[in-house]
């Protein structure tokens, strides 16, 4: 079987698909990714070949103009309103319309038996319907967007689908969901469970991570975007929250070129280059993160209590759900995120209150009970066969 992977042009959107792609390949299937150069480089970093379609997306073009005067997205936008999802739906529906002809041409030439796309890549199900093959959509994690975006997306893609000879805007035949059920939003439609496998790029185990921590280690990883979007004061505040904590150390991932900004960090704060989470989270006692799906699920997989400081979009729902499951704390207002006292209080609660550890372990148990990507391949094979038999 041949599986075509489609993703909107954001590295971390594509990364959602990696473990299923590996599983498909390990079962003897062919896998090819397609997307903008952002997707191509993300695919290649996971050992997957890709077809480059279109130009780089420069998605931050739609964020940075709103951040004048040193604002972070958390200040400028905060928790997304229903309108924000509406705007986002329009944007990704347009993306799908523009990319669809190239995707379709590729699919006609490469002849996939299955399309796997992430939750914002709305072109996938349409191409699949035109080709008469199944499409499955893979959620990133906590999914506050699929349901509210659907009406707008369907309305905006109706004409396109009609011109392609489709009687309706097709839905994916399955929605793969890496969230343990209790972590997912209650209002989100139930998906097909698939166990999360950590991948956020490759790297070598750093010296500090290979030795066991002498004190309780807290991993602080706010993703690839947060620091660059006026995040320096936020990082400084988080670091100063650790000052004077005697039996706790923080490991904070920061791109090497910005380490100079944090030369005065407290002695128990180690500023390190971005490192794959799978190499150092197992040695941590808690995690502070921005609510990115990969970090959320990796921390969950290792059973760690989490402090979530959401910065934009679906990250707020991640913070809500971590709090709701008892596996951690969310601090969603920007002013409190900037307050070292609030951060310190939350970190100490995560480390000292066994209820968070129990909550995190419960989530880990639920995650490990989900079928692995390797097991889900059989379901995907069945989906594709069923279609080809028609």
């Amino acid at each position: 079987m041949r599986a075509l992977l489609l993703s909107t042009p954001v590295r971390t959107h594509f990364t959602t698909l990696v473990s299923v792609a590996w599983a498909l390949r390990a079962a003897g299937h062919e896998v090819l990714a397609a997307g903008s150069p952002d997707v191509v480089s993300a695919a290649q970093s996971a050992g997957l070949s890709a077809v480059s379609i279109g130009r780089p997306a420069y998605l931050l073009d739609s964020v940075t103009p709103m951040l004048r005067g040193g604002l972070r997205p958390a200040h400028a936008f905060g928790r997304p309103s229903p309108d924000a999802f509406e705007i986002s739906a329009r944007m990704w529906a347009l993306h799908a319309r523009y990319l669809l002809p190239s995707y379709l041409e590729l699919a006609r030439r490469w002849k996939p038996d299955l399309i796997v796309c992430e939750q914002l890549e709305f072109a996938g199900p349409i191409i699949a319907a035109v080709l008469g093959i199944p499409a499955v959509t893979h959620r990133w994690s906590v999914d506050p967007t699929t349901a509210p975006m659907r009406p707008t997306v369907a309305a905006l893609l109706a004409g396109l689908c009609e011109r392609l000879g489709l009687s309706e805007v097709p839905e994916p035949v399955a929605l793969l969901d890496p969230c343990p059920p209790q972590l997912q939003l209650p209002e989100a439609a139930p998906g097909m469970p698939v166990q999360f496998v950590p991948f956020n790029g490759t790297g070598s185990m750093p010296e500090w991570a290979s030795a066991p921590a002498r004190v309780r280690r807290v991993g602080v990883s706010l993703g690839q975007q947060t620091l660059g979007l006026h995040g320096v004061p936020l990082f400084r505040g988080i670091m100063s929250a650790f000052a004077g904590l005697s039996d706790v150390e923080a490991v904070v991932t920061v791109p090497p070129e910005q380490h100079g900004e944090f030369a005065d960090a407290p002695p128990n704060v180690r500023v390190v280059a971005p490192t794959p989470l799978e190499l150092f989270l197992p040695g941590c006692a808690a995690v502070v993160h921005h609510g990115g799906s990969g970090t959320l699920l990796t921390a969950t997989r290792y059973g760690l209590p989490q402090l979530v400081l959401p910065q934009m979009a679906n990250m707020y729902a991640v913070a809500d759900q971590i709090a709701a499951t008892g596996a951690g704390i969310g601090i969603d207002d920007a002013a409190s995120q900037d307050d070292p006292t609030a951060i310190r209080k939350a970190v100490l609660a995560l480390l000292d209150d066994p209820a968070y550890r129990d909550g995190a372990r419960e989530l880990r148990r639920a995650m490990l009970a989900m079928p692995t990507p390797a097991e889900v391949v059989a379901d995907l094979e069945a989906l594709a066969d069923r279609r080809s038999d028609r």
Partner: protein
Amino acid sequence: MLSTPFHTHFTPMVPLACALRAAGHEVLVAGQPEVVDAAHSAGLCTASVGERFHANDVLSRKLRPGVRPLQVAGPATPAMLAAGSRIWEMHAKYLLPTYLDLARSWGADLIVSEQMEFTGPIIGAVLGVPAVRHRWGIDALTGPTRESVRLFLAGACERLGLPGFPEDSRWLDPCPPPLQVPDLVRGIPIRPSTFNGAGEMPGWAFEPGSARRVCVCLGRQTLKLNGIGLLRGIVAAFDGLSGVEAVVTVEPEFQEHYADAPANVRIVDPTPLDLILGNCAAVVHHGGASIAMAAASYGIPQLTLPQFMDQFTVGERVVATGVGRSIGTAEQQDDPAVVRDNLRALLDDPGHERAAADVRAATAAMPSPAQVAGDLERLAA
């Protein structure tokens, strides 16, 4: 997962690594920077151990300008194979303590090592965890090196409390049985991969082509080891072959030597084989273990022009099974007329196509890496 410091020694284990990850297991690749690079290119995290190996210090040390290894040493004998592998026995002694510390502190439940990384079985025995050895493909080296490995590593093993080099490891064998060297210890079959790195699908790879397409790929070493002239001869052999077009992978730094290639030859940057081979009617290669397996997987007849070490055995097995042909001497390899005759025979003799189709069927019948990951899980349980 452990590997000696060659990209191509590590790469045959990639499908298994992905299968283990997809089944929810943790995978850590340990090795020198060459292995680290290879693992990262496959999306795997690593522990970097030791310094860069700089293979060409070893491979090209005796070469005069313009002379390639085959012209100095001739086809490899079993004694040469054993001598050439001695370096990996020494490597094992040097790397063993570091690997062992790492395996202990990381808490490995299973060790997978490629066929020339002899530390794997030792570490497995010391830690009491299963160790499996992964062949590259056609395995010309294990037989000739066995005795030498046993003797050379005995002291290191004894100092770790083992009676000797553990020879009871299980093997994983990606080579379909008919192609494999006879008389080897049978391994657990694992369907070979066609993975040799990720890349971008080039536009021409989609075009079915009006002529029969032949892929020419001499690996990463041949050109560097004074093989520019060899490839010029191969390229010239396509001149005037009607109904045939060649796609020749050449690193950008060498492409200037092929500016005058015939019209039916397309010189391209190194491209993942799995993006090319699906549309090819034949493959010309240097007897590399991985490309031979990839060609077998696609059921494509192969012409090998071996240069050193185990590449000659690959050529012999290709000939013995009828899946292709081999040109074994430097003089014949350098004669475009000989190469052209072999290409014609490769493309026109239906026997090769039939044999290649048989091997493809044998390959497809082997368990997938995903299935083998399940077996290994039970082994490590």
